[in-house]
């Protein structure tokens, strides 16, 4: 007598099991197939083309009614299974029970629903099956706005499909970049750019607070109180194995239904397959391993030996125009090396991860034509030692001689375009060189080649080198660091002209050779980005030196110094009392008066920082930024308040200046002083910006220093009113922020651009002065706030040790 097999769930995995069974031994089992959906097996992977309109449901059906009939499979579609009775060995459906000898659970997965208010409103849907897809298509026919929550594979395919159907789509993604499990930051940046070109808006680091609406969804509210209108909300934040039946039946369930290598559950007569299972701690969401499992299950049901092994997986996104590929493992393990290749012109990014001469991971964006070859190397664990140098260029370059970049440039025809921005061909550059333009600057002046975005600078130099031979000496401009061949000036120009608003964008468009920069370039890029794009760019604490990350100065023994702000150097008995109390409470070993008219508490333990800050905050004091490449102090003398020589209210002006400028980040530290008369007791003439009050007004000097170099300020302008002083100083500070190289103080910047250049902008051109002031104010609207209070409130926990194992024994 035939054995009875009951299958719960008619998805792609169980469908493949059935195919193997009827193929190998059609008479082995009487098969009953339950499916909660009122239809049989279809190719779920192709739901995205159905959504976008490229395919219809009929095109993606895998098993139709005829197929089930031809193989004598009893179909109970549209019927929910309510119970697995292991005692009686029967499965109970809504319409009655059926006995089994062997049972296969293939319940798949359920979409994860984020538990926010409004999640059950009409118009909020998930993206798992044909009904969801049809619901989205129906909603899109009414047009309007769609919000997709989740920037993973499924969410992005839903977003692209809805955009294709004419909806105005915004994707909300909790993490810093899209598809963070499959892509690194650089590839995530390119994907986001391409999606935005298709009209899909993307908001990263977006945490959904609530879904709004009365009778139907009307909008989405984010944690930061941003509100978005929505006629349709698609939740695609992830899936979890559907394990309820297995749980109720008392099978062993962890995150998924636990199975052995034969896909048997803790009950040997019950198998499980697909997205509902957990094997060796791993869950499965892509189709390749599910098909491997299906084969093993079929063999097991037919009494043949087989075992499932977890293999490498690769991912591709099914969105037209977004060409990406990701495979292998980027996590865990030591001794790995990266090879990175970027072609900014074509929007191409490739990153290979190598361990012991074996390729173990690859991320590709923009050009995935070689992805199968790379995936093959990963899967087969091919030794790549021989081709390591040219591996990144793909199979076409293997076996040949290494390329000489100069030979490649020499081989270009005269009409090959070198500078895309200005449409300059190689021939025009050669003509300019023949006409006497024998260095980069001259070629730029004559032809404009490389004068716009600058990415072709290297190419132009190579044309010079090929044309002039040994007469051409490559320029000695220093690149920022080993991660790039570009100078600070090149990169600043790129950030502005190409509107690069994220670190990943700079790495990609400027051809960084490392995956995520280094300690030299990251702080510089972080400053350039926040200075040029205050609204678009979000400050990255992890790219800051510890002092600016922890808002205190690290000392040689790892303790910190704490300096509260004293506006213009003025304090009060209450503030002094609070400082004294804090010094005693936190056992501060050294209390010192600084050169900038502040009090320095030295030797505070890192974990005490939030505590001491909270105490100082409570007394009305804020961070003195004594650690920052930013506004430090405005030093003053007592001026007309007390001094018999004072000509103006130097103390009052100093306080006003400090209240306007505090919190601003600058290329290097920025120290100011205001002296009430030319006797200059506040030492204003050796500050970055110094004001000396005179009877007729205020002399503003810039470019002073008293550090490794001692410099006297040079007179920028004399003005009549305090208001003008404040405007000129804001303008010159902003010009410095926008143009100087990171870690150049004002005097170094002034040596490069010249005092006249600065005067032309902040003194002579009043329109430009006002524009600089406006841009400074815009930035200050974000950065003029107390970081101490913010860290006490949000980050205090991060100052404590992650764990304390002092009492933990070794054994």
């Amino acid at each position: 007598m035939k054995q009875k097999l009951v299958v719960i769930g008619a998805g792609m995995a169980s469908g493949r099991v059935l195919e193997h069974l009827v193929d190998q031994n059609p008479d082995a089992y009487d098969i009953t197939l339950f499916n909660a959906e009122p239809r049989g097996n279809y190719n779920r992977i192709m739901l995205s083309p159905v959504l976008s309109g490229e395919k219809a449901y009929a095109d993606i059906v895998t098993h139709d009614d005829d197929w089930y009939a031809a193989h004598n499979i009893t179909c109970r579609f549209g019927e929910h299974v309510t119970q697995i009775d292991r005692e009686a060995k029967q499965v109970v459906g809504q319409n009655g029970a059926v006995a089994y000898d062997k049972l296969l659970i293939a319940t798949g997965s359920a979409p994860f629903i984020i538990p926010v208010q409004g999640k059950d409103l009409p118009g909020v849907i998930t993206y798992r099956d044909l009904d969801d897809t049809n619901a989205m298509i129906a909603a899109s026919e009414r047009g309007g706005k769609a919000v997709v929550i989740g920037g993973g594979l499924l969410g992005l395919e839903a977003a692209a499909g809805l955009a294709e159907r004419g909806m105005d789509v915004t994707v909300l993604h909790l993490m810093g970049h899209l598809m963070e499990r499959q892509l690194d930051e650089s590839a995530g940046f390119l994907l986001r750019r391409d999606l935005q070109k298709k009209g899909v808006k993307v908001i990263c680091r977006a945490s959904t607070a609530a879904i709004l609406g009365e009778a139907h969804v009307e909008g989405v509210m984010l944690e930061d109180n941003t509100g978005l209108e929505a006629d349709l909300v698609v939740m695609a934040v992830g899936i979890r194995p559907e394990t309820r039946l297995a749980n109720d039946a008392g099978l062993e369930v962890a995150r998924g239904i636990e199975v052995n290598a034969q896909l048997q559950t803790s009950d040997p007569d019950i198998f499980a397959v697909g997205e509902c299972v957990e094997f060796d701690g791993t869950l499965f969401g892509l189709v390749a391993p599910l098909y491997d499992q299906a084969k093993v299950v079929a063999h097991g049901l037919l009494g043949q030996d087989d075992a499932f092994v977890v293999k490498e997986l690769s991912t591709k996104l099914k969105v037209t125009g977004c060409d990406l590929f990701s495979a292998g493992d980027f996590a865990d393990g030591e001794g790995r090396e990266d090879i990175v290749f970027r072609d900014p012109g074509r929007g191409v990014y490739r990153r290979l991860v190598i361990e012991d001469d074996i390729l173990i991971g690859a991320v590709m964006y923009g050009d995935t034509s070689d992805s199968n070859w790379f995936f093959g190397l990963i899967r087969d664990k091919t030794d790549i030692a021989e081709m390591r140098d040219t591996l990144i260029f793909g199979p076409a370059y293997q076996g040949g001689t290494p390329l000489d970049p100069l030979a490649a440039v020499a081989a270009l025809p005269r009409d090959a375009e070198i500078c895309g921005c200005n449409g300059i061909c190689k021939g025009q550059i050669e003509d300019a060189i023949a006409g006497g333009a024998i260095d980069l600057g001259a070629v730029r002046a004559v032809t404009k080649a490389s004068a716009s975005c600058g990415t072709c600078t290297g190419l132009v130099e190579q044309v010079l080198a090929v044309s002039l031979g040994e007469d051409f000496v490559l320029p000695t401009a220093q690149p920022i660091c080993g991660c790039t061949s570009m100078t600070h000036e090149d990169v600043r120009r790129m950030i502005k002209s190409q509107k690069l608003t994220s670190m990943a964008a700079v790495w990609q468009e400027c051809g960084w050779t490392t995956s995520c920069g280094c300690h030299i370039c990251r702080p510089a890029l972080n400053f350039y980005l926040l200075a040029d794009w205050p609204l678009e760019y979000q400050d990255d604490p992890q790219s800051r030196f510890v002092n600016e990350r922890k808002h205190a100065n690290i000392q040689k023994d790892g303790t910190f110094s704490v300096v509260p702000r004293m506006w213009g150097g003025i304090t009060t008995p209450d503030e002094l009392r609070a400082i004294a109390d804090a010094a005693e409470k936190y056992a501060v070993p050294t209390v010192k008066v600084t050169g900038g008219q502040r009090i320095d508490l030295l030797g505070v333990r890192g974990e005490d920082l939030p505590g001491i800050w909270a105490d100082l905050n409570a007394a009305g004091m804020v961070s003195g930024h004594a650690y920052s490449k930013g506004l430090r102090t405005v030093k003053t003398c007592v001026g007309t308040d007390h001094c018999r020589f004072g000509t103006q209210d130097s103390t009052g002006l100093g306080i006003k200046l400090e209240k306007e400028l505090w919190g601003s980040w600058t290329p290097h530290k920025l120290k100011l002083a205001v002296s009430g008369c030319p006797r200059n007791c506040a030492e204003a003439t050796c500050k970055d910006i110094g004001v000396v009050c005179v009877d007729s007004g205020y002399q503003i000097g810039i470019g002073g220093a008293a550090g490794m170099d001692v410099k006297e300020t040079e007179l920028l302008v004399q003005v009549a009113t305090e208001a003008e002083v404040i405007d000129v100083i804001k303008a010159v500070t902003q010009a410095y922020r926008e143009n100087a190289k990171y870690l150049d103080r004002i005097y170094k910047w002034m040596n490069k651009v010249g005092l006249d250049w600065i005067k032309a902008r902040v003194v002579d051109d009043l329109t430009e002065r006002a524009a600089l002031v406006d841009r400074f104010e815009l930035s200050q609207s974000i950065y003029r706030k107390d970081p101490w209070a913010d860290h006490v409130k949000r980050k205090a926990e991060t100052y404590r040790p992650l764990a304390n194992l002092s009492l933990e024994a070794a054994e």
Partner: protein
Amino acid sequence: MSTWIDIAALDDIPLRGARMIKTALGCVAIFRTAGDEVYALDNACPHKGGPLAEGIVHGRAVTCPLHNWVISLETGKVQGADEGQVATYAARVENGRILLDRSFLRARAAA
């Protein structure tokens, strides 16, 4: 037989960041790279004992905040022209939790 101690959630450490844990014999720094790998090293630079957990994390390396020595998170070896090595300990991530091999407590006791 190694036994693993659950230290904290992976998300307690920022991407390209580090946190410090205390033990009876000194501090250990736990690093999280951009690729979500974790590494555990003694929290002291071989140069002047600088707290590595406060450094900038880039690739699989950290730069000491005191004098910019660059240390490999994988080997503990100082990179470039400088010389030296920091002790490293087995660490891994499982289900979003950071696990340290208990032997690091023994290794430190023997050191």
